[in-house]
């Protein structure tokens, strides 16, 4: 029996994966879950890999780290980071929901998108993708890409939290940006597509 719902949020420093994980945590408490989130902080430096483990459950108590090959869902703000964390943490036949917008390293040495998704498909039963960066940019604030991915996760049906609670949490987190953030949540929800 699976006792917890385990999500890995994967991104690159500066993309907002830590804040996205906390927003899901806030909403989950409101929805009656207990929550543990694990993450590592390092130097105040942008561009490195950032992983957040988000665990939701109703009974008992759990630590903040998800065991290898046991996450239910990998939520990617960046496709290679999503694959990397899926390889270690996603359970067989789990789900990946990810942005397919790459962040290239300085030497531009980056695998092809086909390779990334083909390999993710060896683990995941379902993969959902969208260009969260472009959607956020078009909506007027590239920093909202993390909320596009939350919208996509909800659209893909992997977040067990009521839509109203999610929207309330998103609106309250950054009151000044509530308009854009709620808009990109909707866009993420509608535009996410399952890959064949």
């Amino acid at each position, binding site marked *: 029996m699976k006792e917890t719902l385990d999500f890995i949020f994967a991104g690159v420093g500066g993309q907002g994966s830590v804040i996205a994980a906390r927003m899901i945590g806030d909403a989950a408490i409101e929805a009656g879950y207990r929550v543990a989130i694990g993450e590592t902080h390092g130097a105040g430096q942008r561009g490195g890999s950032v992983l957040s483990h988000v665990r939701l459950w109703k009974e008992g108590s759990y630590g903040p780290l998800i065991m290898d090959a046991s996450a239910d869902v990998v939520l990617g703000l960046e496709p290679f980071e999503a694959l990397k964390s899926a390889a270690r943490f996603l359970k067989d036949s789990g789900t990946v929901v990810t942005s397919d917008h790459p962040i290239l390293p300085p030497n531009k040495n980056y695998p092809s998108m086909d390779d990334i998704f083909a390999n993710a498909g060896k683990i995941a039963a379902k993969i959902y993708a969208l260009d969260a960066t472009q959607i956020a940019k078009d909506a007027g604030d590239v920093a909202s890409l993390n909320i596009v991915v939350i919208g996509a996760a909800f659209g893909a049906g992997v977040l067990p939290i009521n839509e109203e609670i999610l929207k309330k949490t998103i609106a*309250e987190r950054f009151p000044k940006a509530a308009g854009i953030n709620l808009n990109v949540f909707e866009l993420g929800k509608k535009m996410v597509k399952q890959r064949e």
Partner: protein
Amino acid sequence: MASKVAIDAPGKKMLLMGNEAVARGAIEAGCQFASAYPGTPSSEILETLSDVAKDFGMHAQWSTNEMVALWAGAGATYCGQRALVAGKHHGIAWMVDPLINFAHWQIGRGGMVVAIGDDPQGHSSSNEFDSRNLASRVFEIPVLEPADPQEAKDFVKIGFELSEQLKSPIYVRLTTRVCHGTGDVTYGEIPKERRRPDFFATPIELGMEMISKYGWVDMAYLHDRVHTVRLKEAEEISNNFTHNILTINGGEELGIIATGVTRHYVEEAVRKLGIKAAFLQLGMSFPLPTEKVRKLLKGVKKVVVFEETDPVVETDVRSFAKDAAPGVQIFGKISGHTPVSGELNVLKVMNTLAKISGKDAPVIPERADIKEMISPYLGMRRITLCAACPHRASGYVVKKACEALGIDYIGVGDIGCYGMMGLPPILSFQLTNAMGGSIGMANGIAKTGLGDRVIAFIGDSTFYHAGLPSLINASFNNAKFTTVILDNSVTGMTGFQPHPGTGQNAMGEKVNPVSIEALVRACGIDEVAILDPYNITKSIEGTKQLLSKDKASCIIFRRACSTEYLRQRRKQGLAPPKPFYVDQNICNGCMTCVNEFGCPAIIWDDNTQKASIDDAQCRGCANCTQICPQKAIKMAVSK
């Protein structure tokens, strides 16, 4: 958003990071004094309190170092107020001498909680060590080990009560997964009354009647009192501690003892493996709750201990069991059944338990083909100094100046972001150790006579923290070396805390900045240059001038941290500075920018064999325009 730790709503559930929960615990305990020096994973404790201290009649301070933080906190306890002193495991090393004293001589009427973030695995540290060794063996003070944010909050509050009961500092041992773990926390009440300060430090108050009787103090008596009175009482408390939970259903052959966050790993591992085990969870690990341990040992044949990082509890259990239950086999780090270093996790705990109970170890899918596909790209996001970081420019300047003078120097680094100056391509130094090690070791290296020059690289905050006594030592002992102070006007590595040079403190008060150059001159260093590393040509000249003199000298490279600069601009609603670009017609692919400077905003294209600039990363510092031999890098015209 108003700080969520300040919300006065008993029973409310909030999502808090462990460090925020420690802060909330201090507020719920009516703590009126908090001090710390920043250090990952503990920095958010004081950061959180500094935002709300005024609302709760509390003074919160970033102290110049952890020793000062502890002394200041002790001062508050002698005036009857509760004091929280926070830091990371490296920080406790700076508190050792005063803490031993307070453990022996007693604190004042106000309780003292010392909350320390150990960093098993050394995620953000230059080593991993188990500070419980100091707390239990050297300070001999009670140790509480919360498993999650809820307990972090609760244990701080309990810690203050125990501290006043036992007249001892109480050690709250946190770890990275507790400090930086986030979880639901149910709030308690916030006391409304504040304690009026009063000075309590008479011999009677401190339990040293012998001063009045004999006019002297027997140091052995003070130590004796720790063992015969305090630790006895503390052991009783440990036996009755509600978070030292013994669960025996009957018939178990295996017993498990676990502390801190490993308690959650054990619960999950036991469920996943489907094994039967008696379980003793230790929220208070020192002194050992011997009665509960005795009960556990009585019923089982084997006991395994899970703890991070050293076998502290395991050692105590082994020594207790030798007489209490000599037939019981004890497993742990000492027996080689749990890892002797690094963090634990559910998988490691499952592997240990499977081995001991004769079960199959969990099978983790190999996924070798996927890992092979990934592996060539794993190094793509290497840790590096930020774009526009002044430290990169400073390191480049020193390197170029030394090359021009033909100086082959021995470089010693220190603790901060600038530790990355020791990495390619800047390579400013070969050696980095612990806080203050740069100037400290330069004192010795210079005396050996090795190398053309010795250069110590130290950050501004680290200089105040640990550099100053070593620089005084250099003048006193006539050690000739050059100190490079990298002044980016903030404690950058740990999240942009103010320091004595910034003119603002944790309470947000404007204060007189403590001048680094005045300190350096007062230490007896006459040759001092203050340079702006963003002006690379001028800085190289200034550095050459200084290094060409055969005297002890100091260069202060002064330029704001580029990340903090951007944060401040964003706060003021200002756009980031305009990015630069590489004129592809002029770039001849010499790679000077990539191989000698290595800014992460500079991208090398293998196909075109030319450099370009990622305008999402470029922060417009213009440093690269000064190092490009072809002058191919230009400011972008507005699009």
